[in-house]
């Protein structure tokens, strides 16, 4: 191992220690209990959580120093996401700090940087991602939302029409970064631009899509003649696909899924001790198999991150980690449902709020069911497993 990696390792270990101290000493007990029981968090919870992270300098720790970040190495980024997920902390909302922030500081105008970056760091603006459309999921470049540039005496603006779908927490969002088509002429990818849409604009309609856990995580966003000033275009027209790919690259660390799997496995072991509807011998064997798969995931992920730092990666490590991580996580969740027995089928979304107790089983039974149901989508969103396998087949195996 070279010196750079060695130093990064030490810094990542120090960050993990600091996060554990934060969890014990700073993390508020009400949020701790809610997240421990996998209960539903509202916008105020998430904003409080993101601001606590920012107070520590962690929400944008991966940003360059000139924009207020700490220029974390990939190992530190991984440790940050992994360690918080292991502790069962709330989801670190990525849309501002992880997704659009880096696009703005890399490709945005100085006015955009000044206007948006500070408010992203502090979550004064809550961001949503306007990527998928009804006909453009895995095939994102098939998107059809149009932004037509209109010249007026007061200056130019775009008129945006279309529909976005699966927009997480659009109901809370102040802003949405959007992929739109700014020309009908160019081939699909050359027509795409990256636009920042004020969610308070006339013509924006948000409709919930209830998921099978009974909650409103995702939405449809309808854009009907929405007027967007030209200064909200990021970079150049027709370059949106490049920025989208850059944004995806920022997902590469994927530490959260490793930590989530660790946390779920740890909870499963606890369930097996306290409340088992499955014979102990078979359950132990099943948990053992899951632990073995976790070991493989963890080692593959760590070594992938180090390979990325050394520049010896094959480029599809994130796909491997997402594939193995999400599939393992789902299998752990199934084992937890089986272990809960009747408590694994008693479910009312109303029971997954602070203060509520499920009718059967431990206090977090409802949260375990909720996570099991919602995380069937983990192999669908953020690039479905089928797409991840395509990426490996094309990008690594040359097939």
């Amino acid at each position, binding site marked *: 191992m070279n010196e750079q990696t060695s130093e990064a390792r030490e810094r990542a270990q120090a960050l993990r220690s600091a996060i554990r101290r934060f969890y014990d000493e700073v993390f508020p007990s009400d949020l701790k209990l809610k997240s421990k029981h996998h209960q539903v968090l509202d916008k105020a919870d998430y904003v409080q959580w993101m601001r606590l992270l920012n107070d520590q300098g962690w929400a944008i720790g991966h940003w360059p120093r000139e924009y207020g970040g700490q220029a974390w190495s990939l190992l530190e980024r991984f440790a940050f996401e992994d360690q918080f997920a292991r502790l069962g902390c709330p989801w670190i909302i990525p849309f501002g700090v992880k997704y659009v922030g880096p696009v703005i500081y890399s490709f945005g105008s100085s006015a955009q940087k000044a206007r948006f970056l500070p408010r992203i760091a502090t979550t004064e603006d809550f961001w949503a991602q306007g990527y998928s459309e009804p006909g453009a999921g895995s095939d994102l470049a098939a998107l059809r939302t149009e932004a037509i540039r209109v010249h007026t005496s007061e200056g130019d603006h775009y008129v945006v029409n279309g529909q976005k779908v699966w927009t997480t927490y659009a109901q809370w969002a102040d802003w949405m970064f959007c992929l739109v088509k700014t020309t009908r002429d160019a081939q699909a990818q050359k027509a795409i631009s990256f636009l920042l849409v004020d969610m308070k604009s006339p013509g924006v309609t948000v409709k919930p899509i209830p998921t099978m856990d*009974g909650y409103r995580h995702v939405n449809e966003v309808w854009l009907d003649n929405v007027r967007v000033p030209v200064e909200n275009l990021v970079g150049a027209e027709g370059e949106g696909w490049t920025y989208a790919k850059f944004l995806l690259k920022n997902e590469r660390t994927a530490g959260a899924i490793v930590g989530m799997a660790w946390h779920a496995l740890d909870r499963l072991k606890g369930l097996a001790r306290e409340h088992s509807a499955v014979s102990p011998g078979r359950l132990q064997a099943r948990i053992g198999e899951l632990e073995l798969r976790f070991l493989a995931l963890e080692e593959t992920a760590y070594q992938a991150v180090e390979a990325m730092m050394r520049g010896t990666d094959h480029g599809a490590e994130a796909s491997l980690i997402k594939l193995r991580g999400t599939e393992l996580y789902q299998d752990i969740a199934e084992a937890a449902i089986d272990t809960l027995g009747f408590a694994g089928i008693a479910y009312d979304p109303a029971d997954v709020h602070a203060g509520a107790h499920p009718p059967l089983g431990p206090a977090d039974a409802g949260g375990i069911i909720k996570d099991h149901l919602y995380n069937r989508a983990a192999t*669908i969103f953020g690039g479905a497993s089928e797409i991840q396998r395509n990426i490996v087949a094309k990008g690594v195996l040359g097939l």
Partner: protein
Amino acid sequence: MSLDFDTAGMLGDSARRYADDHYSLAQRHAVLADPAGYSAGAWRAYAELGWLALRLPEEHGGMDADPLVVGALMEVVGSRLLMEPVLASAIVGTELLLQQASAAQHDEYLPRLADGSLKLAFADAEPGDGASPCTVREGRLTGTKIAVLHGDLADRLVVSAVDGGRGGETRLYLVAPASSGVAATRFRLVDGRGAANFRFAAASVEPLGAGRAGSAAATIADVRDRATVASCAEARGIVRMLVAASCDYLKIRKQFGRAIGTNQALQHRAVEMFLLQEEIAALTLAAQRALALPPRERARVISGAKAYICGAARTVANEAVQMHGGVGVTDELDVSHYFRRLMVNAALFGNRDEHFARFLGEATARGETA
């Protein structure tokens, strides 16, 4: 045992026609939103269609249906996700009364089961810690029951309890949930159907088959097997719908300029789902036939079928959600409702682990199971 394929075919067709006309997905969403947890109108229709008298003997106006005929109805209960207590009352509760109630009780209760005015739920499972076993002393019931399917809406519970006056023998008792000494915690299962936990404190009971030397334990074992076989048929109905819906979606959903079903990787996975569907169908029929086999072979086949079907149906449901992509996890589409019904189907009347142990011939300790 010769099974009545003709009647099963006719009943299945008639049930599907009823569901086509009266139990669309939109109509079912209205039932889901109703705090009652079921449709009283649908329940009356089931009585008129004869479904609630399916298991009754002919002298009580019933069909004396064999396991195949019961399965034909249960397949539709699954494929159309009917919310009403067909399994809990018309099959399980009715069977318990048929086998354990006195002639006078038959005369009193069977007509009410047939006309739908009496809905039963079987309260059998107890908390795994064994801290408050249900016991009857001097005609009063004390103890706890959990996870009673449709216990939220039942007019009477059939409760298994130890008869303290008879040397600890298990017997069955009718209990009115609204009577004094009964405390109910009503809740929803993940598939939207209702259930309840009950705490009994000196609740008054009506013993089934008063004065008859009991074989209630044997009846309970038999009825659990019948419920398991019925749940296999329910799973078969669900799986057929999921496989059909997924294949349809593979044909109509276009990405990258072509139907996603043109990808060989997805074709092979669809074939795997179809193989599981065929195995589930075969094992369901085998389990229906096995009800007539000697005890050991009967247990092996029924529990083997249930154990296999639990895993196979879960695989199909997971794949169906995955192939539908984002819409697969929405509440709007039926796929996620089938997914959730299968979760309940796999946990009631013995989970996979319990049936697997019984298939292997292991002695099973019944903890928190029903």
